[in-house]
């Protein structure tokens, strides 16, 4: 019987939850890195016992931790995220140019084939890669050449929060940056181009169709269809069928098309999930009802999934990296809230249960299925 391991990053530490494949009873670890913000903790597909965690505080800055024994012990690895050369400047809130300054790591994405290769998305927005298990990091500086001088931070900072490695083409990488947009490399990260055509930001940008500047919140792709990408934008749920050449809106009948995470079913490439949030200023579910919305048609037609989720007085948020999908035959879904709950579904979202209720605010959720 398989084991399921859920990795949860929170404002005050990381937690590891384990269950068998029934996903009915869960063991919850003691806090790892107690007191530290864990923006992301993730496992490595090529070596499930190899975990990485992005650990930070306002006091002591950024650390990267690595475990080679599934979290039983941890080793700090490299935390030198120096930009390549003179990174120059980007737009600041007041319209002036501002120097690029490293603040923290938002997202860690290991290679699907090599446990020592891992990518890090950071604030101020840049992409780094390590080929030695996190000991040293090199910036893929070509990304900043994709009009980086025009990027500017949103309210949450100018963060590179999403990295998608195409499992079918090692040269193709997608990234997304808050208040900058989506970007694609076709040469393993050496050069990049913005892929934002079709996005519209009428209320956020003076030019609603600008090449860069759109506030992309997250991206999701099914590995069997790497040309199809789904996007939760600041407002609007979007889809491209041609690897980002052109996007079209698939918000359809959602009660709000604002939100943070987006996910795709493990076995059904046209089944997509979002968790609507009321608005950009009211970061909680519409009507106080926590609802996951599922589309089985690749967008536009959405159904509310509510069984087991609070349907009154719920005012939590679900952050962009806090939604994960497992690979079991009966697809499992997991998301964490700023209220400290982690909800799980073992039936593709039809029903939900909270597998832990009272953690610190959840920053990230990942899941591993172990043989």
């Amino acid at each position, binding site marked *: 019987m398989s084991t399921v391991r859920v990795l949860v990053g929170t*404002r005050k530490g990381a937690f590891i939850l384990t269950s068998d494949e029934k996903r009915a009873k869960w063991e919850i670890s003691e806090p790892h890195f107690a*007191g*530290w913000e864990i923006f992301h903790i993730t496992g490595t597909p090529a070596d499930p016992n190899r975990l990485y965690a992005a650990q930070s*505080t*306002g*006091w*002591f*800055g*950024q*650390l990267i931790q690595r475990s080679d024994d599934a979290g039983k012990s941890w080793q*700090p690895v490299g*935390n*030198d995220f*120096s930009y390549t050369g003179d990174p120059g400047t980007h737009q600041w809130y007041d319209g002036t140019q501002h120097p690029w300054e*490293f603040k923290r790591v938002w997202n860690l994405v290991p290679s699907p084939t090599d446990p020592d290769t891992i990518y890090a998305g950071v604030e101020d927005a840049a992409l780094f890669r390590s080929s030695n298990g996190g000991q040293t990091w090199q910036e893929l500086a070509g990304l900043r050449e994709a009009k980086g001088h025009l990027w500017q931070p949103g309210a949450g900072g100018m963060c590179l929060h999403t990295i998608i490695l195409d499992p079918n083409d090692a040269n193709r990488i997608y990234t997304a940056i808050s208040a900058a947009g989506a970007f694609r490399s076709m040469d393993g990260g050496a050069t990049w181009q913005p892929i934002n055509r079709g996005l519209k930001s009428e209320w956020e940008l003076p030019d609603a169709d600008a090449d860069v500047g759109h506030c992309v919140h997250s991206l999701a792709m099914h590995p069997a269809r790497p040309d199809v990408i789904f996007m939760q934008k600041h407002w609007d749920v979007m889809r491209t069928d041609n690897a980002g050449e052109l996007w079209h809106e698939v918000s359809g009948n959602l009660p709000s098309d604002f939100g943070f995470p987006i996910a795709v079913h493990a076995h059904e490439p046209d089944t997509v999930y979002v968790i609507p949030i009321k608005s950009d200023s009211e970061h909680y579910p519409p009507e106080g009802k926590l609802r996951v919305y599922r589309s089985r048609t690749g967008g536009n037609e959405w159904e509310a999934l509510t069984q087991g989720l609070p349907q009154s007085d719920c005012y939590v948020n679900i952050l962009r990296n806090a939604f994960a999908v497992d690979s079991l035959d009966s697809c499992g879904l997991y998301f964490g809230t700023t209220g400290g709950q982690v909800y799980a579904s073992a039936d593709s979202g039809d029903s939900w249960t909270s597998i832990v209720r009272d953690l610190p*605010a959840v920053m990230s959720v990942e899941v591993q299925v172990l043989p």
Partner: protein
Amino acid sequence: MIRVKLPVHLRTLTGVSGEVVLAVEEPVTQRSILDALEAKYPTLTGTIRDRATQQRRSLVRFFACGQDLSHELPDTPLPDAVVTGVELFLIVGAMAGGA
């Protein structure tokens, strides 16, 4: 020998349970103590002062002899009581509200 007390999170990070004792050549300054500390515990690099600028991180404080030395220049000699090991050089996480 210089006696340094780390804040709890950095003691956990380094696996140190008590004080850190460092041999530091005179003149003993904030910079020379931090250089010695990072040489002994490389994982502390970047946690007390910024890697690029070498400036003290804004929410880290340096106390000794009942004084806040955080705003002294990094190469200013430290008090004799620190140099002789009579007094601890305290590295402190600043009081900060919020989450």
